[in-house]
C-alpha cells in the first residue's frame, strides 16, 4: 500500500513523484474542481479521516473537514450558510447510532438533517449535493471511499447554481 517515493537521491529506479501530475486530478471535461465541506464529529468520523491518513488511503483534495463535537451540533443554518457561500457539496458524517459517544447525538443529527434536506430540495439544490453518512472511528477505508464517491458525484453534477448574483451593487439613490 505504500507508494512513498525513494528518499535517497541518486538511485534512478523511482522517479521523484513531485513532478509527475497524474491525469486523474485534472478533470478532462470542464476542469471544474468541486469545493466540498465535511462536518465531521470529533469521536467517530474525524478519527476515521485520520485513520485514512495513517493507512495512506488516497482521496481527492476537494473535501475539507470542519470538526464539531457531535453530529447533532450541525444545524440547517450551517448547511445553508455553506451553500450560500458557494459550496458545491456538503457532507455531514456522524457516528453509527450505537457508537455515539453522547448516546443519542447521532439520532438527533438524523432528525435535524430531514429538515435541512427538505429546505435545500425546495431551494432547487440537487438532492445529491447534501449527504448524511455514518462512519465509525475504525472505518478509515469507508471514509476514503465516501470522500471519493461524493467528490465524483458532485463533479458529475457540476458547479452549484448558487453563486454571487450578476447585478452590480453600485450606490442606490433613493428617489422619493
Amino acid at each position, binding site marked *: 500500500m505504500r507508494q512513498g517515493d525513494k528518499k535517497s537521491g541518486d538511485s534512478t529506479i523511482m522517479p521523484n513523484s513531485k513532478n509527475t501530475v497524474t491525469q486523474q486530478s485534472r478533470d478532462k471535461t470542464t476542469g471544474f474542481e468541486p469545493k466540498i465541506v465535511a462536518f465531521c464529529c470529533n469521536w467517530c468520523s474525524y*478519527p476515521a479521516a485520520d485513520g485514512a491518513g495513517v493507512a495512506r488511503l488516497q482521496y481527492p483534495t476537494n473535501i475539507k473537514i470542519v470538526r464539531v463535537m457531535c453530529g447533532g451540533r450541525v444545524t440547517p443554518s450551517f448547511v445553508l450558510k455553506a451553500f450560500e457561500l458557494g459550496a458545491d457539496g456538503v457532507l455531514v458524517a456522524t457516528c453509527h447510532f450505537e*457508537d455515539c459517544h453522547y448516546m443519542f447525538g447521532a439520532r438527533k443529527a438524523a432528525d435535524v438533517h430531514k429538515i435541512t434536506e427538505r429546505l435545500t430540495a425546495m431551494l432547487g439544490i440537487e438532492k445529491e449535493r447534501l449527504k448524511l453518512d455514518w462512519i465509525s*472511528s*475504525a472505518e478509515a477505508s469507508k471514509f476514503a471511499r465516501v470522500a471519493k464517491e461524493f467528490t465524483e458525484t458532485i463533479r458529475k453534477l457540476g458547479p452549484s447554481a448558487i453563486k454571487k448574483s450578476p447585478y452590480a451593487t453600485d450606490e442606490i439613490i433613493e428617489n422619493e
Partner: protein
Amino acid sequence: MPKGALVVGGGVAGVQSALDLANAGFKVFLVERGPCLGGRTSQIHKIFTSMDCTG
C-alpha cells in the same frame, strides 16, 4: 522516590488498572512484554454485542 505499583502486562486489563491507580494519584510502572500496549484487544477488529471498534 515514592513507592509505586507494578502492573505486569499491557493488555486492556493492565492499562485499565494502571489508569485507575494513576488517577488515584499513585506512581505506576507498567511492564509489557510486547513492543506496545493493547495486547490481544488491539488485534480484535469488532467486539461482540456492541460491534464497535477497539480504537
